[in-house]
């Protein structure tokens, strides 16, 4: 049991595991972005289009897709996913193939992806507070973006790439070695689920 746990922990910190997770999540994110982009084009052509994910008054891609927040930069946000996720996929595949990226590259990736994460959560907040509707593909993007960001951060802390004060680096490495990141992510995703079910309640299932 203990050795099994130790082995699982060792695997969790291996390149194969981290980059496979990143690859899988980035593929999920890319798929969701593609669906959302197609929906955005469909909605532009016909605002009352009956999208497959218009399930009820709360679970509705249409209501989200027609909001101004869905086109913050003047074009559908999902296009950003189509631009960014292939880069993440490339990094993950290359790393799985044994490529080691220089520190500046990983810092750049971390910086850009952090902006993406902030954007994803701003959209989540808008969907909950101001739009009042959820779209399943957008939620998938929120979750997969979180997982990609966590795996990227995991690898950058593990390799000591992040420009942080020495004390913070030690603390961060300690946290990762103790699997605190894993628990925080699982708890965090559960908190998101809890926010959704408590905020929308019965309307989700009607």
């Amino acid at each position: 049991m203990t050795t099994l746990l130790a082995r699982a922990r060792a695997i969790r910190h291996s390149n194969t595991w981290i980059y496979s997770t990143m690859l899988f999540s980035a593929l999920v994110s890319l798929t969701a972005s593609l669906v959302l982009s197609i929906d955005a084009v469909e909605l532009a052509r016909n605002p009352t289009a009956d999208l497959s994910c218009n399930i009820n008054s709360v679970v509705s891609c249409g209501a989200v897709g027609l909001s101004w927040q869905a086109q913050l930069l003047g074009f559908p946000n999902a296009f950003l996913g189509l631009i960014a996720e292939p880069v993440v996929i490339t990094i993950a595949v290359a790393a799985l193939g044994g490529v080691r990226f220089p520190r500046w590259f990983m810092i750049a990736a971390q910086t850009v992806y952090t902006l993406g994460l902030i954007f994803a959560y701003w959209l989540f907040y808008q969907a909950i507070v101001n739009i009042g509707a959820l779209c399943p593909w957008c939620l998938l993007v929120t979750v997969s973006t979180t997982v990609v960001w966590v795996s990227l951060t995991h690898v950058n802390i593990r390799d000591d790439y992040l420009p942080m004060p020495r004390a913070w680096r030690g603390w961060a490495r300690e946290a990762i070695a103790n699997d605190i990141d894993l628990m925080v992510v699982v708890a965090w995703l559960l908190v998101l689920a809890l926010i959704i079910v408590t905020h929308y309640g019965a309307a989700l299932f009607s």
Partner: protein
Amino acid sequence: MIYANVKADSSYEGAKIMGTEAGNRHTAAKKAVASARAGQRGHRTIMVIGGAVIVVLIAAIAISVITAMNDGDKTGADGPLVVPATATADGGLKVGTGPVAVDIYLDYMCPYCGKFEAANHADIQALVDDGTATVNLHPLNFLDPQSRGTEYSSRAANAVATVADKDPGHVLDLNTALFENQPEEGSEGLDDAKIADVAASVGVPQNVTGTFEDRTFVPWVTQSNDAAFANGIEGTPTVKINGVVTDVDLYTAGPLRDAVTAAAGTTK
């Protein structure tokens, strides 16, 4: 990598042990074992705390989901189909007995329906009162997604259908009053109590307004809504005069009244 670091650390410990006196070697090894155990204990504590938090969260989600699913019935959407007493076969609420049929498709969340209503409600009332027209109101609920999950369109339409069933004399008054109190599109809309207040203000008795929250007619509203869109309605407001969609200006007073009066001339 961490695994490799652990190895590096222990070989470092090993080097230290080898570098010390034999007497100290034992203590150092003991220390290393103790610190490894402490690390394991620390990890176990973290696992226990993290696991507990996760279990609590899962339980909270499960409870919320179960509560929500039990509450789900209150939206009325899954209830049996109850048809209002004055309903027409195609989902209208019949008011008046005049020869000209005026079908009005509307959604209480739709801003243009509010403009239509403001321009025409006096004429519509007059056409019904003088026996020129039978008005069939079709309150739809396709704008439910525009009320942040409160399904205002369904609730308002249900209130009107309830009044049509139990107090038909007040249907047009309630229709007008709901548009006078129309919420902004995309807001949560009026709550059930406020809808009841609006109905009471036009004279609907309390024993009728008290049943709004039962949402008895929501399945009927949904059925009418779907029927309307299946039969070629593309948006609201849409007005049919004797079954034909009219293209007169709906947002100024007069043109609709004239069109209905003209139809009355040919109908008679």
